[in-house]
């Protein structure tokens, strides 16, 4: 499990939220071949808006994704077609998609749809 920063960090402008990030269906191969990551992100994005899933996705691309093939995860600044996003095991469409405001302790799962048989 990759841990980042001190969970008690609570200085001005650097309050953090702890999250479980999970990858499935092959996406884990883009993220150090690791299915489960425990990470922390700032409670607010650079424009002082509360962190939402859109911000999280950018954060993952910039900080957690080591693979260069960003377009296997994000296309035109959005999650690429064929990837499902689950917020605490519920389809993100039920939760507001990119606009969902991340809560401390949330589990966000990214699933690449499989087609083999």
């Amino acid at each position, binding site marked *: 499990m990759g841990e980042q920063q001190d969970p008690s960090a609570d200085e001005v402008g650097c309050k953090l939220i702890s999250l479980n990030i999970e990858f499935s*269906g*092959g996406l884990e191969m883009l993220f150090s071949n690791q299915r489960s990551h425990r990470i922390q992100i700032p409670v607010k994005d650079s424009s002082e808006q509360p962190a939402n899933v859109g911000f999280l996705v950018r954060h993952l691309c910039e900080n957690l994704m080591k693979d260069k093939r960003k377009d296997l995860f994000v296309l035109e600044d959005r999650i690429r*077609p064929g990837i499902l996003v689950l917020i605490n095991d519920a*389809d993100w469409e039920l939760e507001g998609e990119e606009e969902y405001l991340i809560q401390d302790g949330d589990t966000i799962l990214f*699933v690449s*749809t499989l*087609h*083999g*048989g």
Partner: protein
Amino acid sequence: ANKSEVKLSLEEYKRYGRQMILPEIGIEGQMSLKRSRVLIVGVGGLGCPAAAYLAGAGVGTLGVIDHDTVENSNLHRQIIHSTSRVGAPKVVSAITYLRDLNPHPNYVPHVEPLTTENALQIMAEYDLVLDCTDHPAIRYLINDVAVVMNIPIVSASALRTDGQLIVLNNPPGVGPCYRCVWPRPPPAESVVGCGEGGILGPVVGLMGIMQAIEAIKIITKNPARDIGRTTMTLFAAYGASPFRCLKMRGKKAGCVACGSPERVGEKITREGIEDGRMDYVAFCGGRAGMREL
């Protein structure tokens, strides 16, 4: 659905006894199974166990469509084929096995690919379709025809050591369809098949068996259908918690297949499929005009 009267012979009572004594099945359920007509599209890693257990359970009509022939490299996972049938059409090989497992069902062979030309005609003969295929293009085709025909889809897929299962268009017009969940196809370069990615045999087998279980539940209408509760099951053989049950979105009002899209011209119709306006291969990023799915 074919609502004609069916009867069970003494031999059938004996054969199905162990499942008929289940309150979830009963004599009524067994009759429903015998009345049902199920199409299995693709008799590979998913279709093999799905066909075996549905034939065993006493589905009345079991159609199998596949244009492939049995290869040596299939046999680690495609367990109703055999070394002695390498080179034979998979459909013929499958029905050879199935008929010896259970002679009672009516097996319908379709030794051809499912295409925009034949899909409507073929699927019109069935009440339920199992999507056991291996490419997004054919998954969209199966979806669009099943929506037009009002039949539910039990869809599964597998790759490497992972599997996914979802029941779509169930009940027809109520549950989400494949396009509700995946309105846009994945970029062609992100699609990996079992040939390139590899596949662990019992992983795809597990997903195929789960399709058989879901098919039996739909056919016997038990549980009575929960409207709008669609789940997707993930399996990861090497995951810390191998099974995961995800709560999925419902039917989308604007879906081009099962809903009413804002631009009326986008609505997928029987005619649009039949006259070739829908190019599934091009839609999924393949060469336009290629019909082979």
